[in-house]
Every structure is written in C-alpha cells, then in structure tokens.
C-alpha cells in the first residue's frame, strides 16, 4: 500500500497507454499526435470521433466510462485519456480487492 494513497503501478503503465492511444489516433486520422496535444482544438478529433475514442478505451482496457467521467475534457489528449484509464483500472482493482 502506498502511504500517499496513490496507486503505485499507474504512473509506470500510463506512458505506454498514452503511446497506444496516440497510435490509435494516428491510425484513424493519419496524424500522430503529441501525448499532450489537444485533439479537438487541433482538428484531429470531433464530436463523432469522441465516441469512438470512448469505445476504443473501453474495449482495449476493459474499463467502463460512465457518469461524470463521460465528458469531453477527459478525452482531449492522449495524456488525459491514459490518466482516466489508470484511475478507472485502479478503482476496479480496489473494488476487486475489497
């Protein structure tokens, strides 16, 4: 258990997840984004692609995005999506342990 209350595994995995997400965006749009690039502001993503991003994350990482998490700001960058995936996986793992 981490004394800081943060899941220790998440930061390690996040970089790889960011890259996977960026590669998925590249495959769909023909442009490889920086992990911190706002996909919507830079024209790579729009409201239609947003739902595809949600479905991609859910299928690839076996998470469910629901409730207050289902908001565009979570999907603006590969970084923010990876952070969301990390948090949802950590929450699911915590639920599983409990």
């Amino acid at each position, binding site marked *: 258990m981490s004394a800081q209350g943060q899941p220790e595994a998440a930061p390690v995995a996040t970089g790889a997840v960011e890259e996977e997400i960026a590669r998925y965006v590249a495959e769909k749009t023909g442009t490889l984004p920086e992990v911190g690039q706002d996909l919507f502001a830079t024209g790579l993503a729009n*409201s*239609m692609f947003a739902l*595809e991003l*949600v*479905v991609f994350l859910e299928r690839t990482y076996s998470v469910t995005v629901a409730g207050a998490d289902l908001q*565009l700001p979570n*999907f603006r960058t590969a970084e923010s999506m990876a952070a969301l995936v990390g948090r949802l996986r950590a929450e699911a793992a915590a639920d599983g342990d409990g």
Partner: protein
Amino acid sequence: MDVPILAVVGAGVMGTGISTLAVGRGLPVVLVDVDEAVLERARVAIASGLRHSQLVGALPVGCAPAELRTTVSLDDVAAAGAVIEAVTERAELKAELLAKVSTLVRPGTALISNTSGIPIDEMAAGVRRPGDLIGTHFMNPAYLISMVEVIRGPRTADETVDSVLSLLTRLGRRAVVVRDAPGFVTSRLLHPMINDAARVVSEGTATAEEVDALMQGCLGHPTGPLRTADLIGIDNLVDALTVLHARTGDERCRPSELLLEKVRRGELGRKSGRGFYVYREAAS
C-alpha cells in the same frame, strides 16, 4: 405535468437518432418497426446515442431520460401527440405508411415525414387530413445537430407548422421552414456535391481523404463531403439522389457508379463499418 408521447415509425438510423434526441430531452417515445431484431439494435443504438450526447454536453442538465418503448404494432401510435415517420427513403412506402397512420391518430395530430428530399405533397394524397402532414429533415446524428429543415407542403395547415415548431423547440432544435420542392434546400445543394465528390475519386483526381481535406481546409466544410456520405449512409444517399434525379432531371443527381458499387458491396458508411472510410470501432 402531462408529457405528450412522441411516436417514431421506422427504427433505422434516423428513427433511432430522433428517438435518442427526444428521450434525452425528457420526451417519452414509442418507437415502431416491423422487425424485432431492428428494434433490439435500435435500443442498443439509443443507449449509445445517449452516452454520446452526454459525452459532448448535448444533454440538458438535470433532465433524466424519458421512457423508450419499442413495438411492432403500428396501432400503438394512436395515443401519440405527434408522429414522426422515418422509414426508408421511398415515396410509395412513406405515402402508404402515412395514410395508415392518419387513420389511427386523433385529428390534429401532426404527421411528420422525416425525409431528405421527397416532396411532402407527393405523400399527402392518401392521408386522411392533408393539413396535418408536414416534413422535417433532421441531420444525422439528430441528437447532436441542432438545426432542422422543416418543409411546409402546399396543403400543410398553420396549426401543424406551429405544433411542429413548438415540438422542435422543446427538443432544443432550431428550425428553418422552407417550401416544398425535391430535395428542399439542404439535399438539393449537398447531395449533388457529394455525388460529384465520389466522381472525383473514381476519376482518380484525388483520394477520398484528399477531397475531404481540401473541402475542410480550403472551403470550411466541417467534415468533408465523403465523410458526410458515410454518416448519411450511402444507400440512403443513393435513394435520395434517385428521388432528386427523377424529379429535377439534373444529371448531377444521377447516382454515380462508385456510390452504386458501394451499395452493392454493402459498404454503406458508418452504420456498416465501412464506406469511403473504415470504422472498426463503430458503436453498433
């Protein structure tokens, strides 16, 4: 408060999208189709559409989704405050259905034909009260695009126009009312352009990606004509072009060979996972 029920007939892409919009805005919907399997897919698509609406902030805050009921019995439209017909884009199918619906509902119930281009008055002949008939042309996805083209036929009553405009306001949509003509305004302009874009691709001038990139980057089109074709559904596009061609004689509206070939191959756009583009993560 007594909330009127909206009946939607036809659970394809448009009927599903319109149902999503209404349910998301707190208006109960009874969705009718002849096929249980189609209704099952529609229920999944509507759930996905509600998530999509929430994702992009298109749902009103603090408004719980209303009830969705699906049925294979057309008689269930009887209690509706308005009926939206969204069956396949063929004049005779729509006319026959609207005539039938007009015998089931109370007089004064708006009969709304959702069509991308069939003149409304062509479907009025068999309808019991032609004044109750009006057209809408929702864009896809209906739950995200806030503008709706409304078509007033020559026999449409003022009360029908008023009631449809207030329904659309309730659904959070803006409307522009236009007169009846093949393709109205949006399809009359958009469909021949998409058809030409497909010809440009088949002539080898540019790829679909390049056509869309130029239309986006140089001319400010939000998605590009061929991505739009995939969103509309290429089968629907061909039907609508056929309607336009038959009624205007405009050769630009004769469905291009590439569009016809895509329909033959089942490459119908987003809804089938492939059109001009590939959609591997399609929600359906």
